[in-house]
């Protein structure tokens, strides 16, 4: 179990963590999502012991590792970290890297299993510079798991990988962590990566938690415009225009209630399915065919800015044409 209680951290005058508190149960996989400078990597470094917070306390498995008068150094926390740049030792082979951690020699069975699962048998005698990014990533993961840590921390584990490798490695990470029931905290700026791997997502900004919930909850019911935007383009329509709407509501900075509709939630209006739906009419300002979808910018007189929608239709639509859509 990981407990972070009221942690503050400053870099010079800049406040990076602002009284942050969170609790993570044993075996849970949690992703911490935020933009750059939000404090997510600092949180990870504080948990691993590489940074010391100004105040607050941290408990790992009911042991206080950080408080006003206690600081347990990283090497004594049994909490391993997978670095964004993998941090493999360039002067050692992959196998030597894997067995570098304290106590990893005693976990040979688990290590063999991990090597098999991650399919890195063929590169064990190679040096890091002889291997691809994906291979290095897998070795870094195995090296961290080889010490049988209580908590595994991962800093942007997928950011250096290409699209195809990302899906494969994210599934593998998730499988390995679950197999050994390790508590995992993953830091990423990409919420889609977080959704693939984790049981729970914590969105942070300016050193405070904006929202904490399951991936589904955060996707469907974001607490603010900022959280909603982490999932890509979205539309915010004043609630006063459609007071009857049953869509999720978020609040703007000046507390105005807004209906939150994602572009792919729209479809062309049809009378029979329109009951209880939000119906909008507007003139097509631009239309672009991307793959099998039409990406449309709709100019609706009462709603600012224009509505962005993605329709999966075969019908041909033109600029200037007036259409009615529902969501």
């Amino acid at each position, binding site marked *: 179990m990981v407990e972070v209680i009221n942690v503050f951290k400053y870099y010079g005058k800049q406040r990076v963590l602002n009284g942050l508190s969170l609790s993570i149960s044993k075996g849970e996989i949690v992703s911490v999502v935020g933009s750059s400078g939000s404090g997510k990597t600092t949180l990870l470094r504080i948990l691993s*012991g590489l940074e010391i917070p100004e105040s607050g306390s941290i408990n790992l498995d009911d042991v206080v590792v950080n408080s006003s008068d206690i600081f347990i*150094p990283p*090497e004594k926390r*049994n909490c391993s*970290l997978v670095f964004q740049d993998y941090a*493999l*030792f*360039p002067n050692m082979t992959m196998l030597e890297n894997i067995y570098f951690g304290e106590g990893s020699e005693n976990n040979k069975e688990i290590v063999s299993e991990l090597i098999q699962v991650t399919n890195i048998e063929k590169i064990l005698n190679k040096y890091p510079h002889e291997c691809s990014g994906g291979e290095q990533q897998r070795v870094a993961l195995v090296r*961290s798991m080889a*010490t049988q840590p209580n908590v595994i921390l991962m800093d942007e584990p997928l950011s250096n990988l290409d699209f195809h490798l990302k899906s494969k490695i994210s599934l593998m990470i998730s499988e390995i962590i679950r197999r050994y029931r390790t508590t995992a905290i993953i830091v990423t700026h990409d919420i889609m990566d977080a959704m693939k791997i984790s049981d729970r997502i914590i969105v942070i900004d300016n050193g405070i938690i904006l929202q904490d919930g399951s991936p589904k909850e955060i996707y469907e019911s974001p607490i603010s415009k900022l959280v909603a935007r982490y999932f890509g383009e979205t539309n915010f329509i004043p609630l006063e225009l459609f007071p009857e709407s049953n869509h999720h509501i978020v609040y703007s900075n000046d507390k105005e209630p807004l209906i939150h509709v994602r572009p792919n939630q729209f479809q062309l209006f049809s009378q029979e399915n329109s009951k209880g739906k939000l119906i909008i009419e507007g003139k097509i300002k631009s239309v672009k065919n991307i793959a099998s979808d039409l990406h449309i910018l709709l100019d609706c007189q009462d709603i600012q800015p224009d509505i962005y929608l993605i329709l999966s239709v075969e019908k041909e639509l033109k600029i200037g044409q007036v259409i009615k859509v529902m969501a």
Partner: protein
Amino acid sequence: MNSWNFLSILIALMIFLPIFLIIYNFNIESDNWVHIRENLLGKYIFSTLCIVLGVSVLSTIIGVGSAWYVTCHDFRGRKTLEWILILPMTIPTYIAAYAYYDILELLNPFFNWFRINIGINETMMVESFLIYLIVIILFSFVLYPYVYLSVRASLLLSGNRLIESAITLGLPSNKIFKKLILPSTKPAIIAGLSLVIMETLNDYAAVEYFGISTLTIGIFRSWFGMYDMASALKLSSYLILFVFSILITEKIIRGKERYNNINGSQNTFSKIPVKNKKIFLVFILCFTPFIFGFLIPFVRLLTWLLYSSFNFEDMNIVQISFNTIFISLIASLSIVCIAFTINFVKNYFNNRIVRKISELAILGYSIPGAIIAIGILKLNSHINTSFNILIIGSVFGLVFAYGVRFLAVAWQPIQSSMKKQCASINHASRVLSASSTTSLFKINLPILRKPLLIAALIVFIDVAKELPLTLILRPFNFDTLATYTYDLINQAQFFQSSLPSLLIIAISFPAIYFINRTTRNEL
């Protein structure tokens, strides 16, 4: 605080102690001080400022100009020039001064005419102006490689993309230089220039030889001539003040403007072609610093060697060469070990006190050797009074003094390589619960082999060339090639001095070649 941190703080404080003693003893009373302050101080400050200013301007012009042409232009012979332009680094300023010792004699007919036709006072004024000019030119031709190397490194890192974008925008070569290269390499110029200034301030033998009274000369005269420690300390404080103001200015300028590090591979470095009619001019421009900074002194020394008649047993040159290599080796190994250990502790444990105190410990390089020697003499008198032990006059004392002076020389390459190559893997090692000793010997040491070797070589060269510190603190009857050259010149044995001078160059030559090749490949 663990034992690693404690040990690092202790070593760093010991190294800073001599500098601290100079600053601390600034106010000691001295009978001679009133005389020095009223009659000599102004002259010392004026001479120092003139030389520093002149050398700064000229070495910047030579260093930046040559770096711009050989790094960013394409012409025949460019690669050869790129390498030979650093060769003046092998020649200490005092040896270059000796090699040009009779330059004023060439002007004798002119001075005679001037004395007869214009007047004695005017002749003296012109003569002293020419001496300053010669020293400035001499120092600039020997010291410009510091600016050249720094600017070349900066251009190799970021010049590529700058030039490519400027060429595509249709800018001519002179505009690229003025509007892009000069502003973007300003931090590199300042960094190189501050080294040039430190080396100029450190010089004792060359300015003494030409009869210019700088602050460093004043310190020597106070100590050697009058045995007046208090005046030497006061003059040292003035020089330290001057050095610190340069360091602060450098920090402010570099702090505001960082390297414009746009990624660009040197393999695809787009060079500006030099037009046929300009090739000769560019080649001559870049070749001149090499001729005056290396070729002429080197050839002169070789010629003297042919005129001199050596008797190896009499001259004891083998023993002196052995002394030089021995002391340089011990000093470079000890200094690199200390720099490596403190840097590791700083990087690994990230302790704030170690970070701050290590910054004080590396101040020594910016302080002339003569001042450090005075600080160590002061420390020696304290230790002698308290424990009845003498540290000066021993190899240990000399190595300690080199440590104070040259720790920063080893520090820079080790620190930057450790930051670049080991920061993240040291963290990885910690979270994998490896001990600090394992991390030090199994990770940092093998990974940093090359930077450690480079650091050791640079310190080795500096110690082999070092004169003022060695002159004051050497053990009795212990000569290095540098002090031996100095003694021979003092006895006007120019021909005989050529062998030790050439041996200093010979010791530095392979090391500089290796350092240049390695650092160039890594940029």
